[in-house]
């Protein structure tokens, strides 16, 4: 009895089919890499309650006009100088030693006419409605950069050279942090209290006001 052998399936074209599918997925793939500047909006406020009083010297005013030009503390400034100016303002620590607002960790010029303490220092950004979004993000980026620079400096000083604020924060967010996450978060919080992010955004002026 001759057993008829089942004919073998020709698998030669398998590679072609697989290639076709591969190319399809290669073309349609967009590896999502969404990253951005996170921000918490202030909650809706009652208009009747007056804002808390702030000393003039504790406010750092950044004004952007419709031509994307920067006016920082009433002086024209280039975007590249903004970060240094913001660092100088935040880190100033102008309150005299002995006063309750004295900033023991500041390394700035201690100019009494600039901010008293990082806890008091507020950066206020005012945009025109016609400012481009590109400029808006660039300004926000520089200001967040200023805060990150100072926070990194403090975290290195307090917790050793390997503890860099932004690196640790990103590692925790991505779930890659090696070591005790809760302890690290506690440390991050401590640093945030030294340099709290106080970025205020004024309502953009309407034209002709």
């Amino acid at each position: 009895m001759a057993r008829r052998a089942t004919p073998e399936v020709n698998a030669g074209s398998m590679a072609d089919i697989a290639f076709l599918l591969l190319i399809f997925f290669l073309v349609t793939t967009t590896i999502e890499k969404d990253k951005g500047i996170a921000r918490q909006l202030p909650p809706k406020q009652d208009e009747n309650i007056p804002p808390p009083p702030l000393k003039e010297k504790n406010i750092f005013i950044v004004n952007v006009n419709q031509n994307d030009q920067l006016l920082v503390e009433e002086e024209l400034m280039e975007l590249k100088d903004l970060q240094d100016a913001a660092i100088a303002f935040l880190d100033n620590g102008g309150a005299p030693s002995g006063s309750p607002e004295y900033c023991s960790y500041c390394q700035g010029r201690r100019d009494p006419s600039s901010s008293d303490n990082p806890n008091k220092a507020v950066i206020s950004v005012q945009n025109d409605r016609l400012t481009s979004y590109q400029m808006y993000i660039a300004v926000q980026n520089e200001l967040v950069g200023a805060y990150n620079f100072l926070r990194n400096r403090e975290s290195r000083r307090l917790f050793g050279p390997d503890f860099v604020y932004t690196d640790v924060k990103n590692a925790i967010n991505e779930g890659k942090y090696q070591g005790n996450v809760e302890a690290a978060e506690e440390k991050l919080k401590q640093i945030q209290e030294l340099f709290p992010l106080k970025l205020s955004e004024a309502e953009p002026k309407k034209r002709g006001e």
Partner: protein
Amino acid sequence: MSKFKKKKGGELPPVNTASLPDIVFMLLFFFMVVTVLRNNELMIKNELPKANEVEKLKKDRSVFIYAGKPSKQYQAKFGTEGKIQIGDKFTDISSLQFALTEAREKLRPELQDRVVVALKVDKETNTGLVTDIKEELRELNMVKIIYIAAPGSELDTK
């Protein structure tokens, strides 16, 4: 009379391609897994501004808002002014709250309170439009936002 005949000639043996399909399949599976098929087609120009002080976005709890000029094929119909897009349709600033509430309900229920609004705004848009969006978000009490940006720095390009 040797039993082992020397192979004739110095020709190279053909490369064995039997494992080629395996390799291709492996690649195929990789790309199949990482592929996210776009479920909302962009009807606007969306070139993101650059920033380097960025954080990662948590995908599972985010609602996307796109804004920018309508792209070429829609300009005849919608003009060239900045427009807001949620999902796959244009939204007016007045109906933004409704569209956002709808988008939020699509998230997992336990994450709906921790929603993050991701703003993907074209870099040529006016800030005024973004301010209007933020004003609406404050009304809705969705205060966590993230401005999605491309990696890089604006300082390099200037």
